């Protein structure tokens, strides 16, 4: 390709070269690019379709509930009076779990991020991850056969001492398979969620703020109050919301532990039920209208957890924008 080519030669050469720049062979490679990007986009769309299908099929299969006469619904008073005790029971179990798991989860996260020596912090993180790795059915079995009998005497004492409070009204269950136990098992299951999310947030606390606080002579507690908690507040809230979403939908801990029954205030007797457990316990034998009822209850659970998760995600998204801007 020397520079002393005549004009005509150069023109020919240009033609050849142009065809090499936009050659047919490379068009074949281009198709590969198109196919691959199309495939990956398609996979993303599958996720969209899948979620839409979850909502659509549940709605479709639940729809017959509207047409069932009130007297034919389980309980005999229409779908609403069938489902609201379940919704309340679901909330009850989740609230107990949150009340127990939130303080412990946050404290354990603090332990890992600010108290444990670096050598200990990592294994402790693994241990907490192990808590998350144990299958729910094993927790359920443990709650049913180990925790329930262990807590029964405590419930007995609690109902005798604080029985005047409706939540602790007696007589306490002799087996211990109560809402309270189910809540404790749920708490253990959501603890790793709260801990791992909070730990991540605590670790991100700006080192400068922490050092500024310590340099002013603050104790560790004061440093945590001044620098860590204000920074982490929104993150903690979203972690709690995510854990709440998990607690609402968790099935096995309740289905195995709780000896179910109608709605009542006492947490120490058998009774109450959650949507998820109701479905798990009854779906295998259900048909016809009962099937539609259970799927409708499942749809309600889906909507409730969806709302909780949406709130959590919104908080996280805003929080990320905020921290990104700084």
């Amino acid at each position, binding site marked *: 390709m020397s520079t002393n080519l005549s004009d005509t030669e150069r023109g020919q050469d240009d033609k050849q070269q142009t065809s090499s720049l936009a050659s047919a062979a490379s068009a074949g*490679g*281009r198709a*590969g*690019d198109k196919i*691959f990007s199309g495939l*990956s986009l*398609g*996979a*993303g769309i*599958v*996720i*969209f379709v*899948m*979620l839409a*299908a979850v909502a659509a*099929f*549940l709605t479709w299969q639940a729809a017959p509930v509207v047409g069932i006469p009130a007297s034919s619904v389980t309980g005999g008073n229409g779908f609403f009076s069938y489902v609201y005790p379940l919704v309340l029971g679901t909330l009850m179990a989740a609230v107990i779990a949150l009340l127990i798991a939130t303080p*412990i989860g946050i*404290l*354990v996260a*603090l*332990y890992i991020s600010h*108290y444990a020596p670096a050598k200990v912090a990592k294994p402790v993180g693994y*241990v907490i*991850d192990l*808590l998350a*790795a*144990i*299958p*729910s*059915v*094993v*927790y359920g*079995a*443990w709650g049913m056969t*180990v*925790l329930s009998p262990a807590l029964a005497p405590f419930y007995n004492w609690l109902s005798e001492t604080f029985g005047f409070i409706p939540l602790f009204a007696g007589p306490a269950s002799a087996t211990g398979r109560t809402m309270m136990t189910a809540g404790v098992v749920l708490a253990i299951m959501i603890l790793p969620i709260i801990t791992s999310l909070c730990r991540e947030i605590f670790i991100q606390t700006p080192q400068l703020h922490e050092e500024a606080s310590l340099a002013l002579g603050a*104790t*560790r*507690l*004061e440093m945590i109050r001044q620098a860590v908690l204000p920074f982490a507040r929104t993150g903690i809230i979203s972690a709690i919301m995510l854990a709440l979403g998990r607690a609402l*939908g*968790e*099935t*096995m801990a309740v*289905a*195995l532990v709780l000896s179910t029954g109608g709605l009542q205030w006492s947490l120490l007797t058998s009774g109450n039920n959650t949507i*998820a457990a109701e*479905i*798990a316990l009854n*779906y*295998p034998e259900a048909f*016809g209208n009962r099937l539609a009822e*259970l*799927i409708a209850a*499942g749809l309600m659970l*889906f909507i409730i*957890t*969806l709302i909780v*998760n949406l709130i959590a995600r919104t908080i996280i998204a805003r929080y990320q924008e905020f921290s990104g801007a700084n």
Partner: protein
Amino acid sequence: MSTNTLQSSTSPARKNTLTSGQRPKWLVPVVMVGAVIVGAALSALLGFNIALWAIFAAVIFLIAAPIAVTVIEGGRKGSDAALTYVVYAAFILAVIPLISVIWTVLARGLPTMSVEFLTETMGGITGMVDQRAADSGEHPPGGALQAVLGTVIVTFWATLFSVPIGLLTAIYLVEYSNDNWLGKIITFLVDVMTGVPSIVAGLFASALFGLMLGPNTRMGIIGAIALTVLMIPTVVKATEEMLKIVPNELREASYALGVRKWRTILKVVIPTSISGIASGVTLAIARVIGETAPLLVTVGYFERVNLNAFNDWMATLPTFIYQQLMRPVAPTAPDPSTDRAWGAALILIVFVMLLNLIARLIARAFAPKTGR
């Protein structure tokens, strides 16, 4: 000041402004021992047991130790000490259930474990058989082979569905979307999907196939679809993170050699991050392998081996555990069933722990390759 230095040089027990007013080193251990003794006494009053003793001792220590520190060093140090002890207590409290669960699974599962338990099914094990076994106190009859095989089959299909979808979605998000609106929507949907309760995923799969094949259809593949819904978001998230840490320089190096984007992704980006992706997928499998609720409503339970995921009911380890606990073979003699449940729980936990271990090993074995 000068007197201070003089003092410290003369007396061995020196006292200076930096260390004055501090609690003696023995204080906290002494309070701890005191709390243990007083706790023992109190619990003895109420009828001694170890749990009660531990609780009393812990409560007394958590109250007494900060007060002791407050008296010597003042309120600020006192509340600081209180938080320190509470943090440690919370950690111990969180570990207790873990130890208890693992201990229970080992203590009750190991005696059940036998060649028989791993190679036989529940076919032919009637209430009579169990009753006899319970009366004579012998090893529980029957086994969980069908459940082990079922779990492997259902999990295999779920992995087969969710890994390509999850992998490709992550590739779209990291390599193609450039943070456009579609990418944001998909990220959002994946987050939403993470929050779908497992029982709802099961209902979805059941409703879907119910429409196509008639209500109450049960097949392994339906369960696999339900698990896929739960597994995809985990795979996407893990893969996304791994793809993001592949340095952009490698992509540019490949482009500059005239390599196409899709080949760059397949031959450079994915090989560089493969260990992280593999370990993420393994963890995702470990997460769904123990799912019970969705399988309960989609796969059901079966006493014998069924290897065909496209036909009929199937047993899996989680539903096996559930079945044995909730519907004992011999309602009047539930012990053999309970034993089998713990045996199956032990197998399940071993599966999960092995998968976790493998994930860590994969991540570690190939880690040096990604870092430069």
